[in-house]
């Protein structure tokens, strides 16, 4: 409403001002324009510098602080998470190492047991073998000794059968011995 009123007023005065100077260079309006510019711009400057700019400045600063704070917090949490992950990895590695150790020990123990068992069994077998060999040797010696006596008896019987006489035992034994030695 004010604007149209102003326009109407302008149209009215324009009639007689039209042949006057170009409005922007009309010095008669300068004093009024300067005064009102100083008043309005001065108030505007005061309002900006006292109220609006500190307010916007503080809004921006608060936001910047808040963002910086949040970033710090995020960094801190990230570091914590990294730490936890490192601890976890360390523990996992430790567990793996100790598991390996236990397995190795068990394997060693089992191997040692097996070796001991085998050695014992082998020793036992060797003992039995030796004893058996000794028995065999004894039996063989005894048998050989029997063989000489049987040969002598057989020879005595053959001689008695063939020539009807008897031969002294001493002679027979000597003969058998000589034959055995000759046969060798």
């Amino acid at each position, binding site marked *: 409403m*004010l*604007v*149209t009123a*102003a*326009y109407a*007023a*302008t*149209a*009215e*005065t*324009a*009639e007689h*001002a*039209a042949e006057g100077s*170009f*409005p*922007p*260079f*009309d010095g*008669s*309006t*300068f*004093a*009024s*324009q*300067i*005064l*009102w*510019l*100083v008043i*309005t*711009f001065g*108030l*505007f*400057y005061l*309002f*900006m*510098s006292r*109220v*609006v*700019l500190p*307010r*916007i*400045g*503080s*809004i*921006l600063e*608060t*936001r910047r602080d*808040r963002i910086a704070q949040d970033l710090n917090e995020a960094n801190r949490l990230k570091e914590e998470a990294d730490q936890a992950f490192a601890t976890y990895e360390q523990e996992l590695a430790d567990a793996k190492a100790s598991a390996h150790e236990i397995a190795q020990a068990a394997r060693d123990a089992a191997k040692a047991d097996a070796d001991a068992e085998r050695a014992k069994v082998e020793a036992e077998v060797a003992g039995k073998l030796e004893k058996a060999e000794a028995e065999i040797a004894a039996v063989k010696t005894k048998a050989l000794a029997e063989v000489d006596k049987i040969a002598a008896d057989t020879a005595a019987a053959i001689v008695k059968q063939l020539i009807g006489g008897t031969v002294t035992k001493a002679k027979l034994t000597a003969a058998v011995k000589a034959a055995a030695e000759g046969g060798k």
Partner: protein
Amino acid sequence: MANDPIHQFQISKLIPIEVGGLDFSFTNSSLFMVATVAAASGFLFLTTSNRGMVPSRMQSISEMCYEFVASMLRDGAGSGGMRFFPMVFSLFMFVLVANLLGMFPYFFTVTSHIIVTFVLAMLVIGTVVVYGFMKHGLGFLNLFVPSGVPGMLLPLVVLIEVISFLSRPISLSVRLFANMLAGHITLKVFAGFVTSLGAMGALGIGGAILPLIMTVALTGLEFLVAFLQAYVFAVLTCMYLNDALHPGH
């Protein structure tokens, strides 16, 4: 009369005030200065009143304005320039909102008057000079003596530097003023073609399509210019403040 492209810059008194022979009337220009300040302050104040950690859309526009000007100033004048942040921010927002309000039909464009842009430019240059002498004393005059210039050329170079410094408030104010003025006149002229051609019957209506397209395109361009000129004004302010902070080239 309705097609007079200059008419939109006419200043009319709404509340006549006269003090000591000087005319301090509350005019349509004053009204739009008040509107500019009210719109910019209201927007920035209301959108940030929630102080949301996660900004709403409107709040992020205010924050973007803040960070846009802050990074502009930091890049242009270093971190020492941040003491001028309220001034640069106020200038940027005032010029931007005044330019954008001027894009509404029947609205007055505050920045289309040379005296307004000149006062704003003088505020910048005044700040540069006062702060420069306060901080560096006479060392501020080193601004006009670039290092590494041979002695013979020095007077000439100093003269050029002084002239370029003195022309800064003029170029700063004329750039903004002329852009807004020329843009609005061009828009008005092309829009005037549309109506005057449209009044000439069927053929005229067909012919009016071209200036209509032109008007639409120019409106888009003017929005760009409105932002761009506020940006340029603020960037140059930062550069000049940099001179006050670091006078040695």
